[in-house]
């Protein structure tokens, strides 16, 4: 064990600053979406009909539940209940992977209908619909990468909790990983209505 003093507030502030850059990153993409929605309103509404609202809604509930699990994991560790914390974290990662499995089926269905970036079918659609699916794949794809990174991060933290490197007296790494996961959830909260519900 090193005896280095840890700056708890500083560690958390640093994480929040990083999260602001994530918000601005997706904010730029949301702006692009809003601009094109303004220009191709009818095409966007037509294209959004092709998305499966049920699957999107299910994925929303999955991510919300995983967010709850990681918040419960923080509470458990703060109360010194390591076992409960590990269980909650494992559940969070499992739900994150479940989200990706859903996404896999969703994208596979799109691909089998000839809808994938650069496909011939996409080029034949009206320009607004082509833009819609371009944004759909770019934004949900980038979000999917974030889910993957978050799941990897939380798996690492799970191991650290198991080994006692993250514990009741020093849990800022768990809190920060949790914050990242919540931002992944936050972004989906806005992606879901924009892509699935504007029909």
């Amino acid at each position, binding site marked *: 064990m090193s005896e280095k003093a840890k700056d708890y507030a500083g560690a958390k502030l640093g994480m929040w600053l990083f999260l602001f850059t994530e918000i601005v990153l997706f904010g730029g993409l949301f*702006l692009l979406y809003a601009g094109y929605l303004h220009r191709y309103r009818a095409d966007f509404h037509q294209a959004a009909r092709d998305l499966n609202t049920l699957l999107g*809604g299910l994925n929303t509930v999955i991510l919300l539940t995983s*967010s709850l699990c990681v*918040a419960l994991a923080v*509470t458990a560790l703060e109360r010194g209940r390591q076992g409960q914390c590990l269980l909650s974290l494992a559940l969070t990662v499992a739900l994150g992977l479940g989200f990706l499995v859903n996404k896999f089926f969703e994208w596979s269905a799109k691909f089998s209908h000839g809808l994938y970036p650069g496909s011939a079918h996409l080029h034949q659609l009206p320009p607004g619909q082509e833009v819609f699916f371009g944004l759909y794949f770019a934004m949900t794809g980038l979000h999917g990468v974030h889910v993957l990174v978050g799941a990897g991060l939380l798996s690492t933290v799970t191991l650290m909790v198991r080994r006692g490197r993250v514990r009741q007296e020093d849990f800022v790494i768990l809190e920060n990983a949790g914050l990242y996961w*919540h931002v992944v959830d936050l972004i989906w*909260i806005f992606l*879901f*209505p924009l892509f699935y519900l504007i029909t």
Partner: protein
Amino acid sequence: MPPDAKHSAPHILSPGLLTAVWGALVCLTGLTIALARLDLGFWNAVAALSIASVKALLVILFFMHLKYENRLLKWLLGLACLVLAIFIGMTFFDLAYRGLGTP
């Protein structure tokens, strides 16, 4: 208002409160899906984005613990949101009036 919490005594959110917040989030998701089935025209987008914003606020305040953090973090988040609002607002000042005045 809780005073700026000292590190030695972190503010712990109870599982009951967290579960209640989760319940509210799931209900709001159901509400936004139900509202999307109605044809409200322009108000569909307003409703969807308002509900999404309320959900985001719930996640930020409770799951992300911001309600209990110090003032610095709250101001910084406000600043980040303000920057985003300026980006979006200024762009739409342009987009909304494009093509006006040209024959």
